[in-house]
């Protein structure tokens, strides 16, 4: 599904160059539930953005669904994003002047589905996420958890093969975070690949595979079986020295 080979990415900051990703090799298969962890500034968001074709990379190769993603036109990239990927952001990124239903329906507008039909489908997705009563509400009338669920509904509506979520629980309290993770797990159960970036170990431990980034490289990949071990090790790390 996803195959990264020796991905490099650097940002130009005036005269000096900031080398953020220094050779990432990663394989993610259809239906996996992956979390990306690492300290702040380690390049997690950068990596996720490359996966979502929101950003390009300097070196290496990225194959998505067997197709090489490189140097494509904005138009092609937009089309591919619309078909393949659903995004969930930490700050929700809903369009403020559209209500919940219209926000959810928007990806279908770009797929050329007519208004009536896409609003109907949007209602179905909102209903599935328990948000039917809020369909007519504007984003500023909803709580963080509700907004994130709207964003998830929007990510799902175009039936993507991959959901990319950058700190989807970053702005939510613990119990709401767990609700959101439960929703993401259900999505994953339906066969969709889910990749999230998170700082929180309890969140990460709900996924099947943890990719730890350190200094622009993959430090370690922890699989489901080793999670218990990981949890223990992590609590040690947290202890003050």
């Amino acid at each position: 599904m996803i195959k990264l080979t020796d991905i490099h990415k650097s940002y130009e900051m005036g005269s000096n160059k900031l080398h953020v990703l220094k050779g990432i090799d990663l394989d993610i298969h259809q239906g996996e539930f992956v979390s990306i962890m690492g300290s702040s500034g380690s390049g997690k968001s950068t990596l996720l953005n490359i996966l979502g074709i929101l950003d390009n990379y300097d070196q290496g190769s990225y194959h998505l669904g067997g197709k090489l993603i490189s140097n494509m036109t904005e138009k092609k990239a937009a089309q591919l994003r619309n078909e393949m990927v659903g995004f969930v952001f930490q700050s929700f990124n809903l369009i403020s002047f559209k209500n919940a239903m219209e926000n959810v329906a928007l990806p279908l507008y770009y797929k050329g589905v007519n208004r009536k039909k896409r609003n109907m489908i949007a209602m179905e997705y909102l209903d599935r996420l328990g948000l039917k009563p809020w369909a007519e509400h504007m984003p500023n009338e909803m709580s963080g958890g509700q907004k994130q669920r709207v964003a998830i509904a929007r990510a799902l509506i175009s039936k993507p093969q991959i959901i990319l979520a950058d700190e989807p629980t970053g702005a939510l309290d613990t119990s709401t975070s767990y609700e959101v993770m439960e929703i993401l797990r259900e999505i994953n159960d339906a066969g969709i690949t889910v990749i999230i970036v998170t700082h929180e170990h309890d969140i990460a431990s709900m996924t099947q595979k943890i990719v730890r980034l350190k200094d622009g490289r993959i430090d370690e990949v922890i699989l489901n079986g080793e999670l218990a071990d990981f949890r223990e090790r992590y609590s040690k790390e947290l202890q003050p020295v």
Partner: protein
Amino acid sequence: MFDIDKWQEILATIKKNKMRTFLTGFSVAWGIFMLMILLGSGNGLSNGVAKNFMGDAVNAMWIWSGETTIPYQGLKSGRPIRFHNDDYDVLQSLPGVETVSGRYFMGNTRYSYGKESGEYTTVTCHPELNDVDQNVMLEGRYINKVDIQEKRKVVVLGKDIREALFKDKPALGEYVKVNNVPFKVVGVCVEPESTRNRNAFMPVSTAQMIFNGSNRLHNFAITINGKTLEESQEIEENIRNTFSRKLRFDKTDDSALGMYNKLENYIQTMRIFQAIKIFIWIIGVGTLIAGIVGVSNIMLIVVKERTKEIGIRKAIGASPSSVIGLILLESILITTIAGYIGLVLGTGLMELINFMMVQSAGDVGAQQGDTLFLNPTVDFGVAVASTVLLIVAGTIAGYIPAKRAASIKPIVALRDE
């Protein structure tokens, strides 16, 4: 191109962003509105002045005599110059002169009919006078050639004289006594652009025979066929030289022979108005540019304000062209509607002013006083063209930032600041 869904999306965006819509729309509507008022006023002013000139034939020239102030060929200054019938013939034979009318004024002539009487000015003239004066006949006819040849005792009364003498009795065919000599009334006229119609007109030949026996003329009114200022000045020059030789005065002596060239005056006035028109156009174009700058500014702000929205749209699959389309169509829609509103209000106001002026002018008759303002309306083509220009400019102004916004990576647009 026409896609209901797209327009629904645009209309929804407009509806939800009323302030932005209003600001863009207002600057366009205001620009067009002001432009219409400016151009309308300019047109009104020049129409008014042109109308004032239209009262008399534009190619008319008046020639009158006075006293010399410069000694000439041994003759002292202070010598009166007089026109006679033969000068009429000379004028008529000059090239470029179309029609000539000689005039002899008789002030304070007594007119009476039955018990009514009054003193009026008698203008003795040739039929050609009306080519210059362009008096409007209310009844009957003007003096004609036969009147002159046969020295008929006929008179054309000014409207005021007719009203004073005849009240509402018929006047045509009646005989009025002019200094006790009976004259037949053959016509009644009004002078355009004048509120006083206290002149009576009679054949110059008849008057010379009956009243003073001489062959003197006070002045000439002629029409010329010079089209340009240069041509008409050449004719004027030729007349002056001819009379200077014949009547013996210095040709630079303006008090010996006075001339008023209407065309020259008309052209000069029109030049001034041309300048005013150009000035108004410059202000108008300035207004338009201010409108364009306003629209561009707002478009820049709009695009900046929408950067995040654009990022979101792109992340969920909007192509750059659809983003540009969304922004531009919105701006075109707003500027078109607002431009139309400004157009309707601006031209509407000018039409209203025009309507009220016509109303207050009152009398349906031809006698409108001097108006400085006439028909202050804007040429429809100009109005539409400037609106279209503003829309196009707004589109171009919106296109550049829209294109830039659409081409930035969604990730950049989405980043929180």
